[in-house]
């Protein structure tokens, strides 16, 4: 028997699975580093998160009578990203709830992969922030200095909890920030390498940027959204610094919070970002501007999660407005 199908009969070697598992691979280095920054519980939280996302996806697809597609790697990414955006000191049971929110409501009830309006991982984070406000805003751990990755295990969180740089900056001002995190090259180096309090996977600017560059090299992502998000955050933070106009520190703003993780791995999520390149530039500026607005004027120290969630539903609107340039539109105009 010979096969028949509509052309083309040859296809590029790319596949959804290949893309997703490559992204997973790019998220592994920040995860491994987080073990050495915050201790072994980051691995436990991530493992629980990934396992629950995969299990919930399989169960939901079964229940909805759809093909089970846990092998495509997308649930694994969601699981890793949920863990990456929550504090390292939370209970490992938190991501289980996050997984239910992300996969059942955020993904499959909306139609499954490709049809979700909001980034599932960030939806889970917003949900956890609303339901566990104390844990999600206080379970921050100070970075380990001696690679004692088991030292936080079993210690009550109240005894070790600290605050994130953005929170210190917001609530206590620049003076307290400098006292706690230092100044100059030392500060930038620590922040760039990842040695600062923060969410599990967001702290290492170096490894996140390297992962993002690899995805760029593979052609899986384009520069449009990461570059616009990062430059907008940098520019606006510089303009509206705490000491008056043009007094902000753009580099610090980009290295703080989840700016880099959001710019390279979340804002440009295929499904929830626009597809047209012009739309992507506007979308990236929007994410950056909302992030800075929330950081400066909002109730939370970090804003990129909500910035992306707020821009997500605008994607189809932007794509409806900016259309690709047609080679030869039909005369008289197509409808």
């Amino acid at each position, binding site marked *: 028997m010979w*096969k028949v199908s509509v*052309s*083309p009969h040859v*296809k590029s070697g790319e*596949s959804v699975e290949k893309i997703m598992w490559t992204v997973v691979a790019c998220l592994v280095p920040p995860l491994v580093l987080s073990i050495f920054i915050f201790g072994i519980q980051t691995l436990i939280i991530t493992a629980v998160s990934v396992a629950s996302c995969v299990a919930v996806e399989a169960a939901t697809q079964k229940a909805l009578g759809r093909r089970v597609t846990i092998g495509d790697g997308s649930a694994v990414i969601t699981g890793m990203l949920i863990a990456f955006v929550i504090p390292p000191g939370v209970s490992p049971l938190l991501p289980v709830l996050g997984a239910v929110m992300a996969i059942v409501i955020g993904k499959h009830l909306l139609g499954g992969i490709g049809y979700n309006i909001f980034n599932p991982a960030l939806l889970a984070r917003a949900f956890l922030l609303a339901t566990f406000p104390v844990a999600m805003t206080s379970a921050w751990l100070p970075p380990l200095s001696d690679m004692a990755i088991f030292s936080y295990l079993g210690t009550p969180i109240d005894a070790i909890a600290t605050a994130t740089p953005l929170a210190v900056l917001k609530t206590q001002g620049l003076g307290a920030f400098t006292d706690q995190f230092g100044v100059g090259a030392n500060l930038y180096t620590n922040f760039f390498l990842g040695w600062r309090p923060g969410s599990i996977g967001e702290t290492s600017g170096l490894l996140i940027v390297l992962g993002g560059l690899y995805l760029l090299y593979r052609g899986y992502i384009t520069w449009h959204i990461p570059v616009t998000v990062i430059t907008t955050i940098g520019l606006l933070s510089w303009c509206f610094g705490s000491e008056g106009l043009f007094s902000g520190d753009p580099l610090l703003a980009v290295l703080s919070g989840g700016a880099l993780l959001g710019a390279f791995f979340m804002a440009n999520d295929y499904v929830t970002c626009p*597809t047209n390149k012009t739309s992507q530039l506007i979308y990236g500026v929007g994410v950056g501007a909302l992030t800075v607005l929330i950081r400066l004027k909002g109730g939370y120290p970090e804003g990129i999660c909500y910035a992306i969630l707020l821009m997500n539903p605008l994607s189809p609107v932007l794509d409806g407005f900016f259309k690709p340039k*047609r080679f030869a539109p*039909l*005369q008289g105009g*197509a409808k």
Partner: protein
Amino acid sequence: MVSLLTFPKGGVHPPASKGLTENLVIEVMPVPDELEIILGQHIGAPCTPTVAPKDAVQEGQVIGEVTKGLGVPLHAPVAGTIKTLGMSGHPMRVSAPSITIQTNKEVPPAQYSRCDWQKLSKEELLAKVHGAGIIGIGGAGFPSHVKLSPPPDNPVDTLILNGAECEPYITADHRQMLENSKEIVEGALVILKILGIKKCFIGIENNKPDAIKAMTEAAAAASTREYTLVVQPLQVKYPQGSEKQLIQAITGRKVPGFALPSAVGVVVHNVSTAKAIYDAVVLTKPLYEKVMTISGKGIRRPANLLVKVGTKVSDIVEYLGGVTPELSKIVMGGPMMGFAVSSLDIPVTKTTSSVLFLAADEIDTTPHSQCIRCGWCLEACPMGLEPKEIALYVEAGRPQDTGQFGVFECFECGCCAYVCPAKRPLVQFVRLAKMKAKR
């Protein structure tokens, strides 16, 4: 180093896969016992048979005429007897009316001699092109004499010969350019004379350096004070050989939607069509043979063959030693735009440029999944369309609303489906949309 031209938007780089046949000299396949000549080989109304069963026919004799509308006559590829007027298998239309000829192998092949075509008038030349049944044999099958009579309100100043051959596997035009470069160039001179213009570009993709060299030499020899023929090397990028893309690459002009190339002063012919026009005008030989590439891991002996129009694929397979056990899919035409067939009982037409016998590892049959909105199809589309939206609308049961995404500008090159990581059959969705969408 000449700079390589290309079209600016979209396109893909599928593996060329031409190594199986690009160095094989065009081989004349022995005439099979029986030929099935399909009546509708060109765009337009099919021919009406002018012969009846049991009639004896000579090689090159007219056996079908166009009675109404666009079209060209059909000729007997061999001397023989008409067996039946019936139906034959067809790659696109499943089955189509045809004339079956029983070959008479006693009769020697017809001989054609050179005529002094330079003395003929424009009208006489056009009549020869029409009378010889010439159509665009690059694929579309558009009657050539129509292309050579552009409307008077669109003055044409440039002829482009299309030697891009951007479809993977196919090497028929490549071999024609190497082995028949002088004839192709003389065919171009005939076309230039008919059109009354002076300038001809020959566009060839840069992965055929030997063809570029041969054609450059032939073009230089044929160029005179009056006529300039220039070979223009092109970047290797699919669909470089698409008419609109080729015109833009070489002249920078954009053919508007639904308009013919003459709207921007250009006429495009395939290099093999130029060879056929040479045969028709210089040798007074009608078009009833076809150079085609038989390739893929599924055939024992890949080859470039000169076959009679009407030869069945099964005869070709038998001549080339049969198929291999790996054979998984048979495609008439190129792997990007060709038609998969389920039977070998299909005759070759004037526009069949290849039959590919593809093994499982040469094709992709992964089942498709949901669109992940990666937008790669938008980047790949040379026409600036939105394949993903068309597909989503069709899936959602709204094919009638896809006109807004330019579904009728789509020429089904397949770039979108080639790059789609979810393996979505985007060309199939487009065809469904075209059936229901409002223009």
